């Protein structure tokens, strides 16, 4: 996928994000599917490819993507299930583009749905965790990001007001997003952030996502087919880069050095862009500190400069670098492992100029990022970047 416009994203769908909404991943996925069919005028038999993201709620089923095809009533000639956590959604766009180019299929439904907050306790990562993690009581991602934040504070000047600014900016975006979780659609101030209680010091409650349920998806097809079907909207995934288990054999690598130092510059290079060309940043946000690391390591600013960079830029939808204009996961809610698609479909929505009250002007391109899986003694397992262009 190197600056090509032969494959396009032609539609998107998204459910409302709900806390313990009670609907299954299949039910939520069906809602996204119905939206996409309605917007495009297509019927299920027009879709011959399916790429789904792994879940927390259905992962015990080893045939999840096959069940999904049966449940929705489609007959894929290419079927993919991707287990890269919050990276799966944009990873599936890249995989779908490859499958379309290879001729395995023509029109792919890229789908992410999860009911993590309603149907909990079915996924278990196992392996070394039973011996070397669970007995310590490390609080999963919250604990790991607490350790990372402590480390960042040791190495650099981390200004709490920069984190507070990100929290408030994203919350203001969620107030304008009807799909954001209602529990979170309440204004917050910087003072609210600064007095928010600690969950894993120095990580605060308002640094963190709340696990919810939700689904999102896009339709990917060849540009040629999009024209044949007379589809009105199209944007192009022009560059993609992904890395798993960055520095896997370096056990003393700095834990705040992440895979984004590889995939960020590489994706920009493939797109022929510099950071100054990025019109909007729709970045995976499980914790606010992750946004700082992504900004630094993609190259928006230098190492340790994120606080100053954040304080000197406007990340609102009308600002100089719009960031997570749907509220991000932190203020819209984390749709379980479908959360990796939340900021991605917001990018598509903005580039289709359907952002409503939060529409970004001149939405020519977007950088979308993903973060997946919490490993032992490191930051995260997978990092990826997708560049979308009009």
């Amino acid at each position, binding site marked *: 996928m190197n600056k090509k416009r032969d494959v396009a994203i032609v539609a998107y769908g998204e459910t409302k994000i709900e806390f313990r909404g009670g609907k299954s991943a299949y039910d939520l996925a069906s809602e996204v599917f119905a939206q996409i069919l309605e917007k495009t005028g297509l019927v299920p038999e027009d879709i011959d490819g399916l790429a789904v993201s792994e879940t927390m709620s259905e992962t015990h089923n080893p045939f999840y993507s096959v069940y999904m095809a049966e449940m929705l009533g489609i007959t894929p000639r290419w079927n993919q299930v991707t287990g890269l956590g919050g990276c799966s959604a944009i990873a599936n766009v890249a995989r779908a583009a490859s499958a379309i180019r290879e001729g395995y299929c023509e029109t792919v439904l890229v789908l992410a749905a999860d009911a993590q907050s309603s149907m909990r306790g079915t996924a278990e990562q196992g392996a070394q965790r039973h011996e070397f993690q669970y007995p*310590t*009581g*490390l*609080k999963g991602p919250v604990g790991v990001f*607490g350790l990372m934040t402590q*480390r960042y504070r040791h190495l650099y000047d981390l200004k709490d007001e920069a984190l507070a600014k990100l929290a408030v900016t994203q919350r203001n975006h969620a107030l304008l997003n009807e799909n954001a979780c209602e529990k979170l659609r309440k204004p917050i101030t910087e003072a609210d952030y600064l007095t928010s209680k600690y969950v894993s010091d120095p990580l605060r409650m308002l640094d963190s996502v709340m696990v919810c349920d939700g689904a999102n998806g896009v339709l990917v097809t060849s540009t040629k087919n999009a024209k044949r079907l007379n589809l009105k909207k199209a944007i192009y995934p022009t560059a993609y880069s992904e890395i798993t288990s960055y520095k*896997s054999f370096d*056990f003393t690598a700095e834990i705040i050095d992440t895979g984004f130092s590889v995939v960020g510059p590489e994706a920009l290079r493939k797109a022929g862009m510099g950071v100054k060309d990025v019109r909007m940043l729709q970045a995976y946000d499980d914790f606010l500190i992750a946004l700082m690391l992504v900004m630094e390591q993609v190259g928006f600013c230098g190492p340790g400069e994120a606080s100053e960079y954040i304080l000197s830029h406007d990340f609102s939808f009308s600002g100089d670098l719009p960031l997570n204009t749907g509220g991000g996961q932190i203020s819209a809610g984390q749709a379980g492992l479908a959360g990796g698609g939340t900021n991605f479909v917001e990018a598509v929505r903005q580039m289709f100029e359907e952002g409503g009250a939060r529409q970004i002007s001149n939405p020519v391109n977007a950088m979308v990022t993903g973060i997946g899986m919490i490993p032992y003694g490191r930051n995260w397992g997978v990092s990826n970047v997708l560049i979308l262009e009009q």
Partner: protein
Amino acid sequence: MNTPSTPVKKTPRPLPKANVYMDTSPFWEAAQQRRLVIQRCPKTGRFQFFPRPGSVFSGRRDTVWTEVSGNGTLYSWTVTRSAWPGHEDRTPYICAYVELPEGVRILCNLFNTDGVELSIGMPVKLYWEVLENGTLYPAFQPA
């Protein structure tokens, strides 16, 4: 039919399950003698932790369990206030990464500290916590 008075059972603290994903018995046998052993790759001389089925440096399945001093430095820590299931009665407790001179880090609890005196880079030493079933579990404390 229903017995509404049945009390909610507290999730017990997770105990290590040895030998599930690979043979880790040498680690736990040494731990019972208050010795910390980690895997060394004979081809490269490098150490790895957590234990793996093979060497991450060579791919060969010839790693050697090697005793280390357990004297290390504090790499980072976090005060856990919101517990992982089974650890509710321990809050607040400290989780940390300790770096060993052999070139690995261990995820662990810190004992014998109130948290206030901690600083990154400070020396730490082994502390063997006795778990509910008698298993000795490696943790650390200020040196």
